[in-house]
């Protein structure tokens, strides 16, 4: 029933140690679980509950609140088509219909070959570029049906460096050493805190 690999279990312990209360590590651990399996299995939630000392139901409650935590397997590419107002006015409905027909699955579904999942999404803060969508949470703007088709072809034929599960975990959470710096009196603020200069781990 154990879910985490040895290596991830070590990492999980390190993550838990960062917080005064183990329960606070729940979301980072969910990310870790999704990184490992591509989605969040029941075993993963049960193990996280054990690790942070709470009930599995509580982990489920938190996990299911966030749409980016997937509780069933998704395709290599997750395509979120915005269906909110600006995009809707500029043809998001038609785009969605086209996408469904092109991929042969309904919104929320995954193609049989496991390549694509399409989802309807709320506003992606790119209303001036409507209709827009995201592929693994990276924007594509003003997408026409033709552009959609060529995008699919391109994604299907090239081997992109994209995590299989198409989620956020490409960038691992990074908490620098000086995170406990505490409050800095205003006169001492000569520049931004050290960790802002740290290189982003990609």
């Amino acid at each position, binding site marked *: 029933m154990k879910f985490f690999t040895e290596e991830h279990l070590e990492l999980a312990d390190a993550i838990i140690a960062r917080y005064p209360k183990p329960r606070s590590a729940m979301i980072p651990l969910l990310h870790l679980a999704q990184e490992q399996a591509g989605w969040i299995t*029941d075993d993963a939630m*049960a193990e996280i509950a054990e690790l942070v000392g709470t*009930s*599995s*139901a*509580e*982990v*489920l*409650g938190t996990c299911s*609140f966030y749409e980016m935590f997937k509780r069933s397997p998704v395709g290599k590419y997750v395509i979120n088509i915005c269906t909110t107002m600006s995009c809707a006015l500029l043809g998001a409905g038609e785009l969605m219909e086209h996408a469904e027909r092109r991929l042969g699955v309904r919104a929320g579904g995954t193609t049989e070959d496991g390549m694509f999942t399409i989802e309807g999404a709320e506003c992606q803060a790119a209303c001036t570029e409507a209709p827009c969508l995201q592929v693994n949470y990276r924007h594509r703007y003003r997408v026409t049906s033709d552009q959609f088709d060529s995008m699919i072809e391109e994604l299907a034929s090239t081997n992109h460096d994209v995590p299989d599960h198409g989620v956020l975990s490409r960038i691992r959470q990074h908490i620098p050493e000086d995170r406990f710096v505490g409050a800095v009196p205003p006169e001492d603020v000569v520049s931004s805190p050290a960790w802002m200069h740290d290189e982003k781990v990609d």
Partner: protein
Amino acid sequence: MSDMPPSEVVITINGAEVEAHPGEMLIAAADRVGVHIPRFCYHERMSSVGMCRMCLVDVDTGRGPMLQPSCMVPVSEGMVVDSESEDTRRAQEGILEFLLVNHPLDCPVCDKGGECPLQDQTVAYGPGESRFIEEKRHYEKPIPISDLVDLDRERCILCDRCTRFADEIAGDPLIQFTERGNAMQVLTFPGEPFSSYFSGNTVQLCPVGALTAAPYRFKARPWDLEQVESTCTTCSLGCRVAVQSSRNELVRYLGVDVESVNHGWLCDKGRFNYEAVNSDDRLTTPLIRDKHDQHQLLGTDWGSALAQAAQAIQQAGPERVGIIGGSQLTNEDAYVWAKLARSVIGTDNVDAQLGDGIPADVVLGLPAATIKDACEADTVLIVGPDLKEELPILHLRLRVATKGKTSVIEIGPTATGADAYAQRSIRCRSGEAARTLLALLEGDDPLAKQLREGSVVAVVGRTSMAESATPALEVASVIRDRLPHATFLPALRRGNVRGALDMGLAPGILPGRTTIDQPSESLTDKWKIIPETTGLDTTGMLQAAASGRLDTLILLGADPLRDFPDRNLAAEAFQYATTIIAIDNFITDSVAQADVILPSTAYGEQGGTTTNIEGRISRLTPKVTPPGTVRDDWMIAAELAWRLGGDIGLGSRQEIWREIEQVAPSHAGVTVERICGPEAHEGILVEGTSIEPTLPPPQESPVIDGYGLRLVSGRKLWDAGTNISHSPSLKHLAEESTLRVHPSDLQRLGVSSGASVRVISTRTTETVVAVADESILRGTAVLPFNQPGGGANRFIDATAHVNDIRIETL
């Protein structure tokens, strides 16, 4: 509930100036002055969350009126509140319209219909008509979230009461809000049902019909229900309940909020075991053993059965009669039986406890604490059984109390429900609790200082059924000696055990917490004859019967074969006793061996009073008529007295109580009028005692030999007990019995987890399934006391202070 600062603030509600406690929520202040603000999510025993917005009212704190949720706004000086303004009214309409957007309105087939806050408040505050024409949410309805509770997600209004209760009060966060927005729903984790001992409370809390109790589903409509307020007697905590019936059948219990005891909560056992009262297996007519075929019981009339019983008592003579049990009786019944035994039969061989408690002089003689004292003490020291299993609502109250300034320290041989909230859980081998406590108090552990300097309530009982009473007495002795300021709550489980002892159903004890050598004048006057020597306790009676020194055993709702810790001794006693007379509701293992069986009334059929472990007297109210020809226990005693040539001289429960009030010194002033008056809602606390308890100093307990394991046995909430076995919804909840041992011990013995092993004790050798469990102390083996598949009482020698067993591979 918490200590209120003394100064009040003045606020204006609907034009009237009222005083409010600083810090309290506006809705609570309004409640106190009789202004009702509609609400769904607010509950006075839980934290405010502001989920439903139904309690919006106009609040002006100097910046002009604004709609604010009154369950989230603390009162402040000069606050002006209008709960009837136009804006408030429109807000209420709006909220109800939203709440009904997804509500299926299946009231005609909903258990809640007729008593539903959503129905009621929609009628009172709703818009009258809905503008919603779209499709509503649909879910499979209902889904079971546990064996006892069903969830209909379509009806749920997401008020967070059930989930908040599960987390905040019960400490079993097994139900949660999942998903978000329109898809939000209450759910359990797949494969992990909401099997909390307190799950039934969520059904009572749910303001709609989303949560329903499986045993009550479709059983009645609220307008058909008749209701009386009564007291739960399943355990000795005495939670207040509303007992509801329909067509002369008990169909539901609801918790009633009393400050001193249960705060409105009930455990699931207390809530649902009314099914046993309705059971077809109830005894309805007297039975006697067939003279020609010893295996047959024959139905008979009361006259012949009583005559046969009386004859057996008479033939035996006073010294050779013993009365075992009575802790499930009402105070009145217990009193009449105590009187029958002493003044008519002439014996002091009476014991309401079944060799599984602590001696009556100690229960009655130690300085007493109340539940409230415990919940307000600096430290509660638990050295006794697992309260979660045996006194569930005490466990709940203590758990909630630890969120305040109260800390819990527990000492015992096994993991318990208190581990989750205890400041410290100290594990020691069974039989060594007193010395462990002594070591703690003598050492430089900061806990010692905390115990010495702060207020302490000690909850003391047997930490294991495989221990004699001595280890518990040693603990009490250490506490009295070292912590003289501590007060005690005895951890005794059975319904009215405290009341039965108060009424004199214990050897050497007379009604009103006095001993046999100091009877009150009025008692001597009423009873005439009082035996001079102290009689035998249950263990003594069974030993006497087993060795032919006692002929007639009377079982007062007692099942020694199941509940006495030593089954072998009980069986031997049954074998050698000439006559066994059983007064009971069901044919239990022991009743099946009886020669005369007299059926008695059950809970919900009797009036009278009961006394909880604090010594608090509460009323019982009959609701349904008993089946067949069954009689109240006191009537049976009175009839027997008559046939034995005596006269109890009492004709009704009221008369009995009047006599108790006269003869029992501690109960003087607790009049029938008080018991029937409004005071009785909280129960009437009887304080004071004239008994000085005898407490032994701690002894070394025997060392275990290299092969042995110390046996530890505790009761479970769901066990093979009589009422549970006769409640169709509950009987499958009891887990099969397994022996749990630390993995290293199992390994040492060459046994793999889950294998059957031979368990050898001084009493017997039998086969049991052994399971590895890391939480068990090394050198200890844990076997639940009374689970299906065989109880621990097979292995226990009741005369030993502790019991050791050996395990062998088959």
